[in-house]
């Protein structure tokens, strides 16, 4: 429906309208979205942001220092978190700032989508210092590229290897394992199937995508040796904090995954399997389903899923044609407010709509914690869930209202809610909300009612 063109484009595909956005988009919602896909994906340029390798090298060095000092009885428990936490704050703030200020919010939402698809979580050691650089290094450069490249970049990144324990995984018949056996080391060394399983289940084929436990185990041996430089003991060699292939921990020999045999070419064996997985029909369907669920409805129309999967397959995993098929799906434009905002959506759209400043320090990040979606902390490799029922709890709603109340109190008459309401909600603005906002007892209360309105809670 034409009347919802701008509001759906800005609020469902984008990150929420800023004043003036809806008028600028007009009835050209599709064109506005298509145009965001043409140029290369934006990079986050900020002098304060370092590389994963740099952060990790420092963290490993600090960890060694801590171990030494602990032996001499020093109080060193907090040193690593003290080093990593400011990095997290800087990175998460830069991400928020990009979300608030970007003129290509569709690309930014896609970035957040893929970052969540390849989720890491900062509750694991080192990840607080890596989650942001992982997104910048592995996700952003490929958001408008090819899924196969995105997949390889994500799985080979030190953040992912550390998060899912692959840096320690050792082939049972590798040189390293044989040496350990000769020395009769009490702790056996061998594979850890965590990363292998999650690649199949979460990142590519999807659960029920046609793999077995044998495939999981075999694939885990394929990627033995995919590690990170500068660790401890067996894992000390290689440039600190960077991807390292360790031939001496790699399980030798050919392996079979999903019925296909892969000759042992060392590190490339894993890349070949990933490339095969990226082109698998189950992967196309899995990605199509997740995209349609994120952009159209909790229960995505099967026709859309089929269309996106077809575009994915026809273009060999190129993502731009898949996004184009999504934009051009009539189902996406039928129903405004079809999705309940996640806490992150709610916060970012509030920042955009009210033009709130993103200062440094912990202040701008506080609402994410308060509303239950701390940036890069989904707590599980499955990432944050994406349906209304996952986010619409009673207590969660009250927290949003309380935060809206605090924002209203802070801004007071510096924003005029009655004028903002049609600018932020467009054709979705209902009569009840319009009247409630215009009749509010104060400017503060009017802003609170606008942010807490049923229309603003959805996208």
């Amino acid at each position, binding site marked *: 429906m034409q009347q919802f063109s701008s509001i759906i484009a800005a609020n469902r595909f984008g990150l929420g309208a800023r004043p003036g956005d809806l008028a600028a988009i007009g009835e050209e919602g599709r064109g506005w979205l298509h145009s965001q896909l043409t140029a290369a994906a934006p990079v986050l340029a900020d002098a304060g942001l370092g590389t994963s390798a740099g952060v990790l090298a420092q963290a490993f060095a600090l960890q060694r220092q801590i171990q030494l000092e602990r032996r001499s009885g020093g109080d060193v428990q907090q040193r690593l978190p003290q080093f990593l936490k400011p990095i997290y704050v800087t990175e998460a703030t830069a991400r928020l700032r990009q979300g608030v200020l970007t003129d290509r919010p569709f690309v930014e939402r896609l970035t957040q989508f893929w970052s969540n698809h390849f989720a890491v979580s900062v*509750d694991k050691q080192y990840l607080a210092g890596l989650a942001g650089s992982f997104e910048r290094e592995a996700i952003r450069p490929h958001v408008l590229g090819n899924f196969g490249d995105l997949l390889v970049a994500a799985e080979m990144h030190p953040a992912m290897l550390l998060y*899912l*324990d692959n840096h*320690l*995984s*050792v082939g*049972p018949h590798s040189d390293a*394992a044989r040496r350990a056996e000769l020395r009769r080391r*009490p*702790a*056996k*060394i*061998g*594979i*850890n*199937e*965590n990363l292998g*399983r999650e690649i199949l*289940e979460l990142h590519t084929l999807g*659960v029920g995508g046609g793999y077995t*436990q044998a495939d*999981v185990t075999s694939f885990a041996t394929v990627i033995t040796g995919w590690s990170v430089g500068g660790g401890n003991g067996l894992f000390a060699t290689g440039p600190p904090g960077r991807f390292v292939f360790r031939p001496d921990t790699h399980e030798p020999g050919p392996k079979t995954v999903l019925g296909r045999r892969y000759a042992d070419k060392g590190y490339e064996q894993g890349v070949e399997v990933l490339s095969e997985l990226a082109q698998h029909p189950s992967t196309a369907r899995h990605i199509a389903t997740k995209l349609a669920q994120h952009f159209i409805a909790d229960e995505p129309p099967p026709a859309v899923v089929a269309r996106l999967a077809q575009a994915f397959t026809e273009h060999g995993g190129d993502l731009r044609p898949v996004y184009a098929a999504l934009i051009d799906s009539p189902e996406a434009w039928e129903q405004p407010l079809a999705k309940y905002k996640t806490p992150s959506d709610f916060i970012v759209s509030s920042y955009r709509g009210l033009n709130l400043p993103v200062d440094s320090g912990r202040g701008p990040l506080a609402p994410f914690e*308060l*509303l*239950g979606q701390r940036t890069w902390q989904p*707590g*599980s490799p*499955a990432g944050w869930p994406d349906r*209304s*029922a*996952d*986010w*619409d*709890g*009673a*207590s*969660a*709603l*009250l*927290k949003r*209202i*309380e*935060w809206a*109340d*605090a924002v209203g109190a802070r801004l007071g008459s510096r924003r005029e809610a009655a004028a903002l309401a049609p600018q932020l909600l467009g054709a979705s603005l209902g009569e*009840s*909300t319009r009247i*409630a906002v215009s009749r*509010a*007892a104060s400017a503060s*209360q009017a802003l*609170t*009612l606008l942010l*807490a*309105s*049923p229309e603003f*809670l959805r996208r």
Partner: protein
Amino acid sequence: MSVMKRRDFLNSGALAAGGAFFTSGLSLAGAPARSRPHARLVLVILRGALDGLAAVPPLGDRDYPRLRGEFALRSPGQPQGALPLDGFFGLHPSLGFLHSSYGARELVVFHAVASPYRERSHFDGQDVLENGSTVPHALQSGWLNRALGSAAPVGTRQSGVALGQNVPLVMRGPAEVTSWSPSKLAGLDEDTLARITDLYARDPLLSVRLADALAADAMVAQNGRLDAMAQEMAAAPDSPSMSPAASPAPKSLAPGADRYAEIVHAAAGFLRQESGPQVAVFDTTGWDTHANEGGAEGQLAGRLAGLDKGLARLREELGSTWKDTAVLLVTEFGRTAAINGTRGTDHGTATMAFLIGGAVAGGRVIADWPGLSSRALYQGRDLAPTLDLRCVLKGVLDEHLSVPQRVLDGSVFPGSESVRPLRGLIRA
């Protein structure tokens, strides 16, 4: 829907009179076989697949030391040894409160237990654990919600609360439930709240959610007043004795105290109240020990100690309500029988479950032990399941919450006629 103000709600007398806890009606089906109006149930979901062989080591199994290597626990009595249960099984040394509860006959340990799910995805495993069917994503509601909607009605109080901002799948469904989590912001003024309530009046989702949130908040406020009253009375030696509902007086936690303690405190506050919800659910995470799991000490030992401490706190804070309480602790599946190559364990199949509480007929380990020999292991790698977790859940729902058998077989655990409830888990 009429405008409801927070103070009006508190003053309405609904709570004091033991009236409706939730504002919308419940769908009630089926007459109760018998009624246990004071029964309380707590469900704790241990997300991430807790290693049952670490929490409840089968010390008497000859294959156990070989499989667990450096992490095998020593026998009871030795330094850092396991805590003794029945001679064959032990408890992890971090589980001191559970162990004393076993001695007090308030703990049943189940072993080699599993949901019907036989793959190894956390997310699908948790889905089956919560939806109550045998297939992931087959249902959009949870078994506990469906049980609540059909259990013995006690006024309209038969309801549940999820401790957390959102409601986990196991508690989602037609029966009215709410969620509660501590707030760090100032409360809303009545006028703003009234206007938002009006604004949501024609939104079927938001109107119900807001009303439930306010009801839960009112309950917590009420509980705070009872706490304060009980403390005053305890301080005055000549004061009349407290009503059972108000005892005991737990020290209130400072805001920002650790999340788990806050949640346990809140859960106890809800369940102690005469007109409060009958069921509380919360979850804990961090059980996915793929690397450096540890043995008597280490990563998992620390997590288990935290869990044990939380349960001890729950007992303390429930006070006299503990005698009517059963706490179920379940996880989506177990972990590999052998230690993996990175000193941890990978996703497995069968594991343990705990049922603890004053209402529990405990002091027993219930296990049809399959053994840990290579031939006995499920698919050559995991503890084999010999007990369907649904037998435990059905037994508890039947005896504790009086959910009729045909409802358990039909809607709570669809198509589970052949899965018989375990009897005798709850004290008569």
